[in-house]
């Protein structure tokens, strides 16, 4: 069972990368009332029949993983969103991509914590694939945006332990600044 919203975010962004997206966007907005997350991609998209089954537990698109189908990412997202006073919406078009939007109530007692966003973003940027991920983080007081391509340009790569550690420090400093602006 997923314990944090970041776990759900990791699942959904992975779906985008596995759908062959070259551009993935992750937007996370938090305020005292709501946590809103939007994940968009320019991957292969889903046709109507697949989209209708997307929230079905254990359904995974044919051919995605031979002999290995978990198919719980979106069902767990739906369960979490609806159990906490939120909602989820998916729009998708074959050949164009997919957008997954969801929000949860920030003060519902069942709402999972956001989790360790720094390490989640770092992990999402270190998959072995040719894609760009742009992360936008917003609070009512401040915001920041960082992309995988910018980090690779600054560091040379996001594969070596040394560059990952520096990237982690960079991402942590952005989140810490958001925390300071809230005080």
């Amino acid at each position, binding site marked *: *069972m*997923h314990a944090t919203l*970041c*776990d759900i975010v*990791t*699942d959904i962004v*992975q779906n985008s990368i*596995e759908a062959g997206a070259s551009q993935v966007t992750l937007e996370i907005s938090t305020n005292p009332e709501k946590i809103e997350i939007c994940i968009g991609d320019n991957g292969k998209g889903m046709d109507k029949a697949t989209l209708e089954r997307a929230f079905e537990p254990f359904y995974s698109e044919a051919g995605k*993983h*031979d*002999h*290995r189908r*978990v198919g*719980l*990412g979106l069902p767990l997202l739906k369960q979490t969103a609806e159990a906490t006073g939120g909602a989820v919406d998916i729009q998708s078009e074959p050949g164009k991509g997919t957008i997954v939007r969801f929000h949860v109530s920030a003060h519902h007692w069942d709402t999972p914590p956001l989790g*360790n966003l720094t*390490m*989640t973003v770092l*992990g999402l940027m*270190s*998959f*072995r694939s040719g894609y760009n991920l742009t992360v936008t983080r917003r609070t009512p007081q401040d915001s920041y945006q960082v992309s995988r391509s*910018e*980090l690779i*340009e*600054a*560091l*040379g790569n996001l*594969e*070596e*332990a*040394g*560059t*990952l*550690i*520096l*990237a*982690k*420090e*960079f991402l*942590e*400093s*952005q989140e*810490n*600044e958001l925390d300071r602006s809230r005080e």
Partner: protein
Amino acid sequence: MAKLTLDALRKLREEQQKTMVMRDPSNKDTQVIVGMGTCGIAAGAKDVFNTILEVLEAKNVTHVRVTQTGCMGLCHSEPTVEVIVPGMPVVIYGNVKKDIAKQIVQEHVIEKKLLDNHICDKPAMDIIRK
């Protein structure tokens, strides 16, 4: 920590590279791959990824490549970590918790010794890239 800019990040990287030139680059082709599918995440793979990075940093072993991948087909043994060290068999460790992750870095990556009791498998046949 003050908010870092990309320019500051570039400078930190340049300083790091100057230091790395003086170190033994023998880990350059070593890869550590952490499984981060739904199953891995639920089993605690993120903690494993964090721990591996922390230990590598503490040991000043910065050439090693650390990446993530999706489900490797070993959901029953998550978290899983694949380790590729030139000259050694490619192995997947299963049921990796933080203490095992530390051992993987110290014993397999640095000391070049397999952790026989924690080896799970080779990569699943359907995901071996041809």
